[in-house]
C-alpha cells in the first residue's frame, strides 16, 4: 500500500518502513521552532527534569530555532523580561538559530525559517505556533504544538505519541484570473471544508496551479491550512522548492524531495479549477465564513492591514504598492503594512515599494505579528472594521471584542484602501 507525503516523512522519522493513517508513532524532530512563548516552554522544560537527577539540557541545540516576532520591540516590561530570560537560555544552551530584534536578522518566524533555509523537504518541523503548518510549503511535515509538547521535544528530540493523520488531496488546476491568487484559493477551500473540515488531517496540494505557484504563494496555502483545522498543508517539493532553497535561502546541502506514492491512500480528493475562483473574503467572526468579494462590497473599512506571516512577503508588498503608487489611501481609512521579515523590508525599500506605500499614506510597521493577534499596536476601536491580509478574524482577534475583521488578499486590501470600503479588486484602482 502506498504512502502520502506526510506518511512517508513520519515513517522515515519514526524509523519505520511503512505507516498508515491512525498509526501512533514517535517521529524524530529535525527542527523545533518557538517565538516569545519559549518563555513558557522553558518553564515546562525545567519541570520535566525536576527529580531526574539530570541537568536540563536540550537534546540538540542545532535543531532549535527561536525567533522574536510577537512583540517586537517589547511593549511592556513583562515581555522585555521574558525576552531577556530567553536570550539567557539561548546563550546557556548554545542555540544558534536565534533571531533577535534586529533589522539584519529579524522577522516573523514563518518567514525566517524558509528565508534562512532552515526547513528542507522531508523534515519533521514542530513549532509552538499553530501557523507552523506554513512550512509544508517546502515539502516538509510541519506541526503546530503547545508549549509542553515543545518542552518534551527539547528533552527527547521526538514528538511523543503522534497519530499519523489522514490526508486530503487537493488538486488545483487551471490558471488564476487577474486579481485572484493563492489567498483567494485558500479562503475558498476553507469555506468549502469549514473550520474543522481538515481537523487531525493533512492537506496535500497538487495540480498545475500549484506547480506554477511561487514559494510565497505556497506558504499562503499551507499557512492557512490550519484554519480548516489541518495539522499541516504540504506542497510536495519540486524544482521551484529546490531553486528557492538554493538561490534565495543559500542552502548547499543535498535536498531530497519526498513525493507521494502513486497508490497513496487519500481520505478525500478535492478538485478545483482556479479559473473559477473569484476574489474571496472571510467575513467576521470565523475564517470559514467565506464569500466572494462581491457579496461584501461597500462595507466601510477603518483599518487596512497588509502583512503578517500569511501575506507580508515581497510579492504581496509589490501588489499593494502597485495599486497605491501615485494614489492615496482614502480619507477616514488608515493603512498599516507589516513586512514579514527585515530582509523583505530592506528589499521592498530598495525597490521603492515602501516609498510608494508611504506616499499613499500607509504606515510601515516593524516586521512582526503586530496587530494580527492584538498584542502589539494597531488595535481596533469599538465598532471599527478592519480588512486584513492576515489569517484570523475571530472576535477580539485584533485586540477588541467589539470590532470586526474581514480577511482578503493583498490586492483586494490595497484596492479597498483606495476607496475606504471593501472593493472588488477586479475593478482596479479606478
Amino acid at each position: 500500500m502506498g504512502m502520502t507525503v506526510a506518511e512517508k516523512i513520519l515513517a522515515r522519522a519514526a524509523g519505520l518502513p511503512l505507516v498508515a493513517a491512525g498509526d501512533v508513532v514517535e517521529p524524530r524532530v529535525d527542527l523545533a521552532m518557538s517565538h516569545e512563548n519559549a518563555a513558557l516552554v522553558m518553564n515546562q522544560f525545567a519541570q520535566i527534569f525536576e527529580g531526574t537527577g539530570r541537568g536540563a539540557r536540550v537534546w540538540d541545540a542545532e535543531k532549535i530555532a527561536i525567533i522574536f516576532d510577537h512583540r517586537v520591540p517589547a511593549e511592556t516590561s513583562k515581555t522585555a523580561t521574558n525576552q531577556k530570560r530567553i536570550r539567557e537560555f539561548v546563550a546557556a544552551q548554545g542555540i544558534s538559530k536565534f533571531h533577535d530584534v534586529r533589522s539584519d536578522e529579524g522577522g516573523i518566524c514563518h518567514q525566517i525559517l524558509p528565508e534562512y533555509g532552515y526547513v528542507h523537504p522531508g523534515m519533521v518541523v514542530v513549532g509552538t505556533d499553530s501557523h507552523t503548518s506554513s512550512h509544508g510549503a517546502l515539502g516538509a511535515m510541519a506541526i503546530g504544538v503547545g508549549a509542553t509538547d515543545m518542552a518534551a521535544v527539547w528533552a527527547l528530540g521526538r514528538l511523543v505519541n503522534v497519530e499519523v493523520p489522514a490526508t486530503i488531496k487537493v488538486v488545483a488546476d487551471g490558471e488564476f484570473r487577474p486579481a485572484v491568487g493563492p489567498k483567494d484559493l485558500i479562503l475558498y477551500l476553507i469555506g468549502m471544508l469549514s473550520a474543522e473540515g481538515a481537523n487531525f488531517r493533512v492537506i496535500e496540494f497538487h495540480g498545475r496551479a500549484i506547480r506554477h505557484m511561487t514559494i510565497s504563494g505556497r506558504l499562503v496555502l499551507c499557512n492557512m491550512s490550519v484554519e480548516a483545522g489541518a495539522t499541516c498543508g504540504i506542497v510536495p517539493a519540486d524544482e521551484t522548492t529546490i531553486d528557492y532553497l538554493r538561490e534565495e535561502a543559500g542552502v548547499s546541502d543535498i535536498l531530497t524531495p519526498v513525493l507521494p506514492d502513486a497508490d497513496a491512500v487519500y481520505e478525500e480528493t478535492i478538485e478545483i479549477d482556479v479559473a473559477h475562483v473569484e476574489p474571496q473574503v472571510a467575513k467576521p467572526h470565523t475564517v470559514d465564513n467565506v464569500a466572494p468579494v462581491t457579496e461584501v462590497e461597500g462595507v466601510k473599512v477603518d483599518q487596512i492591514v497588509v502583512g503578517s506571516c500569511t501575506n507580508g512577503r515581497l510579492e504581496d508588498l509589490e501588489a499593494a504598492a502597485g495599486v497605491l503608487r501615485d494614489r492615496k489611501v482614502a480619507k477616514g481609512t488608515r493603512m498599516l503594512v507589516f513586512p514579514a521579515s527585515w530582509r523583505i523590508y530592506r528589499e521592498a525599500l530598495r525597490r521603492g515599494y515602501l516609498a510608494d506605500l508611504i506616499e499613499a499614506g500607509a504606515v510601515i510597521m516593524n516586521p512582526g505579528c503586530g496587530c494580527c493577534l492584538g498584542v502589539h499596536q494597531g488595535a481596533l476601536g469599538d465598532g471599527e472594521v478592519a480588512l486584513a491580509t492576515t489569517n484570523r478574524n475571530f472576535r477580539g482577534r485584533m485586540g477588541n471584542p467589539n470590532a470586526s475583521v474581514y480577511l482578503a488578499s493583498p490586492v483586494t486590501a490595497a484596492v479597498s484602501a483606495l476607496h475606504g470600503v471593501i472593493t472588488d479588486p477586479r475593478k482596479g484602482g479606478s
Partner: protein
Amino acid sequence: MAKVVLRLGDDVSTDAIYPGRFMATVLPTETPQHCFADHVEFNKKLVQGEVAPGSVVVAGRNFGTGSSREQAASCLKGWDLVVVAHNYSRIFLQNAVNLGLRLVVCSALEADEGDELEFTPHTVVNQTTVRTYPIEPLPRARLAIVEAGGLIPYVRMKLLEERLD
C-alpha cells in the same frame, strides 16, 4: 454532580478562551485571571470565586480552534473546569491532555446553563433533563499521556527509562 456554568456554541477559539493581549502572561498561577476575559460576566464570576471547582463548560463542535497558546488550557485548568464538547481542535486537545485538563467528548449532549451533570466512565447523565449521552474516547495517541497524569510526568518517565537503557 457538576453544574453547567457556561454554554457556548461551535468553533470557540483560543482567542475567546484566552485573548491574545494576555499572552505575555504564561504562569499557570496567573493565566486563570484572564480565562474568558472578553466574556466579561463569566470572567467576573470566576475571579470572584463564584464558580465551584469541577463545574462544566459545554460547547459544540471544534472547541479550542485557532492559536496553539497553551494558556487557553492552563486558564481552564486553573479553575478546575471540565469541558464537554462535541469535538476539539487538535492542538487544544493535545494541550489540554498534556496539562491534565479534563475534556469530555460527547457529540450528542444537550444541556443548558444551570443543568446538573453526572459523569460515569462511558456516559454523561443530564440529571436535570434525566437523559443519558454516550462519551466518545479521546484519540488513541493521547491515552498514555492521560494515564501518566499529563505530559510532564510522561516525559520524565521516558527520560528515566532511557537512562536505564
